[in-house]
């Protein structure tokens, strides 16, 4: 139904998220770092981005900035992080309309959040 981009340097996370999202009927594209993710976005648009915070080359914040500069607030972004300073991160990224989600997480709950984000953004999109 929706096309989702997953960017994380941890292959296991990418793998497990792909399995769960695929099972819930989403199409998934994956990237191992921020730079790859941005390159993929250039090639084909997606409905939602799930990005890790700490990644080589371009990190989560870099991805958020680049996406917001290019396509504005249209794409919902979910940032996963295992960092301690999640409150600060929320402040920093909240301005970009980004949802920060803590690691470790349960895939089932994450799927619910993703569906919510997709639903909300769909509503917003239909308003004008």
């Amino acid at each position, binding site marked *: 139904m929706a096309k989702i981009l997953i960017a994380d340097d941890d292959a*296991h996370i990418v793998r497990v998220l792909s399995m769960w999202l695929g099972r819930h009927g989403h199409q998934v594209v994956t990237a191992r770092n921020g730079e790859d993710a941005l390159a993929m976005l250039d090639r084909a648009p997606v409905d939602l981005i799930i990005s890790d915070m700490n990644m080589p080359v371009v990190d989560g914040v870099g991805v958020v900035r680049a996406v917001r500069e290019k396509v504005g607030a249209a794409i919902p972004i979910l940032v996963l992080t295992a960092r301690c300073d999640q409150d600060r991160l929320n402040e920093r990224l909240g301005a970009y309309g980004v949802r920060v989600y803590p690691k*470790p997480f349960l*895939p089932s709950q994450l799927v619910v959040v993703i569906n919510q984000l997709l639903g909300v953004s769909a509503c917003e999109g239909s308003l004008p």
Partner: protein
Amino acid sequence: MGDLWKSFRRFLTAEEVPRWFGLSVVLIYLVGMGSIAQFGISQARRETAIRFQGDSQYAVKLLADRIEAIEGDPAADREWLSACQRALREFAANVPSRSVRVLEGLNVIASANPMETGTTIEGRISGASLAGGLEVATIPPATSQASGSDAWHRLIRAPLNPGTEGMGEESAASEVLPASPPRCLEVVLPLEPVESTSLVDQARLLAIILAVLGALFVVYRCLREQLRGVSKIANRLELHRDRIEDDLASLRIGDSLDSVTAGWNELVELTERLLATVQRTEANEELSRVLQRSGGGALSEALNALPDGLIYISDEVRFEYVNSAACRLLGWNAQDVKTMTLSDAQGNELGQKLLELIRGAARPEGDFEARTEVLEAGDDQAQDRSTYRVWLIPLQRARHHGECVVVIRDVSQQVRADRAREEFIAQVTHELRTPLTNIRAYTETLSSGMFEDPKVITECYNVITKETRRLSRLVEDILSVSQLEVGSIELHVDGVDLKSLLSDGIRDVRGLADEKNIDIQLVLPAKLEPIRGDRDKLAVVVNNLLGNAIKYTSANGNVVVGCQAAAEEVVLTFKDNGIGIDLSEHARVFEKFQRGSNPEVQNESGTGIGLYTAREIVRRHGGDIELLSEKNKGSTFMVRLPHRESRAAALTSA
């Protein structure tokens, strides 16, 4: 009139003795001297009068003798009369006299005054008889005898006997004239009333003496009143002579009622105040002097030896004292400091910030607020930026409320350590959460029942197993750091086969290496003796160094693990062609919780304990780790492990 009375009362009540005292003394002195002179003059006059009395008596006697010596009959002889008259006139011409005459009974038979001759006097004045037949009387003024006269006179009467020649005739004549009354010479002289004037003088003298005594009494009373205060002061001084320095206040006179003691009390208070001011000033000067004494002063030397910067700002907003640490920190020259004021001072970055702080703390009243602040200065790079804690402490001294002391402490080390610890905790949390995330996600994948593909299930188990191992190794690492920290790490020494140690290590990281397509080569000599050591700990060393090599080498890189055996030691080398480490950071990367500062390192996960742990373990084995690396030119870590068993054994026992 009222004023006069008032000043008189003041005089009597001794209020204004000082003014009156001199006047009184001068008056008393003049009166005394005057009266003495007066007395002397009257005495002298009296003596003169007495002497004149004697002289006049003698002159009268001589005159009588001369008259007696005139030959002839006084009754009928004209010659006798003229001779007598001449003698009387001569006398009158030489001696001031009122009348000089010869009497026969009441008849004047001859006189210096020719008009008188032949007259009759009204009566005889009888007087006191003196030796030689003289008769003397004092005639008071305004008697009938001396009409119009207001002066005292003296009458001297000398009897005249008939001359020796005419004795016979006389006797004959007496026979003829038996009733002839006796003749006498009578002289009236002006005279000072000797006796009576003396009495007046004495009375006057007595009065003067009484007056002087009275005046002296008044002056004495006044002085006594006045001197009562003075004697009190003298008493106090006497009492406090020994402890005058201890307590100036005890010199004060409690029941001070008159002006002298009140003035004394004011004086004592003033002295107290002055003394206090002097003491404060002295203390202040002493402090300044001690502080300013450069080089020689022990206090100054001690303050200069302090690691903390110390600044003493005087109430004139001058830098009264700046120790050498402060000069160094603020970039000041110790010589220039003395001429600087707060408003014109300059400094380096920290100096400017500090001056701003001090200026901000200065209040319009002229004193300072207490402040405690943290200032940062130095290179903009986070690691080299120094942190300083600054205390501004106003000195609470009366009158010198404008002074303060500023203490500057370099807390960079502490801040850096705190920051490193915080970062470590954040990193450790992150590191622990990463395998936990996988374990949790894959566990739910298994338990959800949504994925029944056996391949997926196997994959899930594998990931869980691997991540669990990673987690436990991480916990081990953290534990070993804390053990290394408290020095309680124990080496279980045994023979360690280096070949298996290295190949097992490579096997553990193979997965990571494959992910980045990094090639790992192991180059070993043909024959390799086992070394003495703790295999598990050495495995940690190998794992940490290999893990770093893979982590900081970009995809498709190379890692070469080698081993050279020498007589004394074995050297294990871990060579990569990764990002390398800048020379300036070679020492730092081995420090606990410290990692390279470049973004390539910071973006990788890591706790900053791997190299620290590795080197500590190697050092416990008596060896060390060396680093050969340059930025962007790869890194080579060389682990030197000595063969000597004794050291390892000694370490075990230790």
